């Protein structure tokens, strides 16, 4: 019931917004979806990976290439797109999580870089530097989902992502992820297969990022290399840390705030908004190392006493 209400409110908002604001709103929803997944990987499971945004791109490019270069029907294209993400994630995670923490960071950094190189050099398959454009979402059950209605699809993916992650987080698997983050040696002594837990968490969150990417592909109806640059991986990391690492609500707050901040800042400070943005980020981390969600926690504690 609460999920349905959330769906109605979040999708309904799209009908109240103009074209421009609806576009901003959709991208914000996608960033929230990405931040939720990355929070599980980084905040809950403690894995420092920089590939989350690359998987968003892999999902987007996969579905577009499958649909319009290879003429695969939509349902199959979605399944195959997820499969591509899973295979790439396993290929990165299995060797690197067997080694210690920072190898995953290096391997995923390399993957994120390599992905952009492949996009640029992919010739007619990826469309090279110009990417692929001028396509339209195929009809689903004879219906063309357009305009604000498509926002409903994004909301659906966001809520599905949140539901899966919440379910996982409250299960023994989520607890195992936190245990692996906090103390891998003690986790192993309790019977947790540390390497496998890491690989599963990495693959699952990467696949979720891929699904978000597939939805993104039909937001602008164009995919090109600059969209999926490495700087986005760091923005995701900042979102999770500023909001409150390890907390779903923290990821939402961080993503909304950091996504919207440049829109508020650039009219006030113009081109210097990147600098102001950096200073604000640093201040937030120094003043609130546990994230903005900690302010809410303190308020609630005071209220309940």
């Amino acid at each position, binding site marked *: 019931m609460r999920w349905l209400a959330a769906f109605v409110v979040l999708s309904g908002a799209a009908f109240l917004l103009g074209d421009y604001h609806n576009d901003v709103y959709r991208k914000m929803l996608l960033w929230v979806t990405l931040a939720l997944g990355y929070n599980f990987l980084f905040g809950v499971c403690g894995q420092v990976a920089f590939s989350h945004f690359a998987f968003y791109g892999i999902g987007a490019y996969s579905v577009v290439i499958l649909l319009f270069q290879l003429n695969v029907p939509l349902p199959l294209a979605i399944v195959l797109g997820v499969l591509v993400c899973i295979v790439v994630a396993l290929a990165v995670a299995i060797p690197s999580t067997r080694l210690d923490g920072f190898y995953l960071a290096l391997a995923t950094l390399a993957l994120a870089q390599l992905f952009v190189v492949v996009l640029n050099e992919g010739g007619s398959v990826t469309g090279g530097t110009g990417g692929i454009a001028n396509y339209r979402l195929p009809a689903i059950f004879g219906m063309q989902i357009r305009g604000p209605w498509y926002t409903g699809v994004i909301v659906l993916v966001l809520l599905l992502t949140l539901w899966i992650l919440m379910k996982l987080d*409250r*299960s*023994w*698997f989520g*607890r*195992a992820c*936190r*245990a692996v*983050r*906090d*103390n891998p*040696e*003690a*986790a*192993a*002594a*309790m*019977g*947790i*297969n*540390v390497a496998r837990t890491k690989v599963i968490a990495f693959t699952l969150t990467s696949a979720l990022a891929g699904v978000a990417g597939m939805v993104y592909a039909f937001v602008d109806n164009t995919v090109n290399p600059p969209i999926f640059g490495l700087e986005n991986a760091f923005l995701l990391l900042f979102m999770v840390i500023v909001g409150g690492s*390890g907390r779903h609500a923290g990821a939402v707050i961080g993503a909304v705030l950091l996504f919207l901040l440049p829109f508020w800042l650039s009219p006030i400070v113009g081109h210097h908004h990147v600098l102001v943005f950096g200073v604000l980020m640093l201040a937030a981390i120094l003043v609130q190392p546990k994230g903005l969600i900690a302010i809410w926690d303190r308020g609630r504690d005071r209220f309940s006493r």
Partner: protein
Amino acid sequence: MGPRQGPILEVRGLSKRFGGLTAVSALDFEVREGEILGMIGPNGAGKSTTFNLIAGTYPATSGEVFFNRESILGMPPHRIARRGVLRTFQHNRPFEGMSVLDNVLVGAHRLFTKNSRQEEAERRIRAEELIEFVGLGGTASADVGTLSFGQGRLLEIARALAGEPRLILFDEPAAGLAPAELDRLAEIIRGIAARGIAVLLIEHDMHFLLPLAHRVVVLNFGAKIADGLPDEIRRNPAVMDAYLGSHAEHH
């Protein structure tokens, strides 16, 4: 209640060499269900190495370790734990970002078979009972960071018990505890053995261990120099020489 049935843990000819140093040499011993086996010896006698070999932290040079008649030597720690061998750490190793209850629930990891709400609720009740049993009642929802050192040691025990071990390994559980806490600890360990769980207790402090253990193995320079009842160990001149002799030098 004393020992029952055949041995659940059998160690045969266990040896470990680090380069030229023999840390553990051809060690034989066994632990029965419901038995508290104490292992003592001066610093550097090979107690911790033996512990880590059984727990799977590092590989042995030679020998055999059977748990429930199955060879577990060479298995990674998580697979040994999955079979029902759980341990505490000498330096408390809580999961820092979690509540006391969640810490204990991680200990129950090996028992989760499905992903049902009912299973989770059952484990939760069991975990709360264990928190009560070790004397941490009222702290279940507290952050582990708020516990004292002694409470942290009790949490280590509750966490290991949550996995319903058949063998529990204690790595110097008395280290760093105050005298009042030691009495409480001894009482808990007796209670664990009374449930039919085999206890292997590695300990430096003889005064804590001798009244508590059913049987004692004494190590010196990696080899077993005595194996018997606590009273026999007290009267054994070789033990007094090796252990108390080296102890006396420190004072």
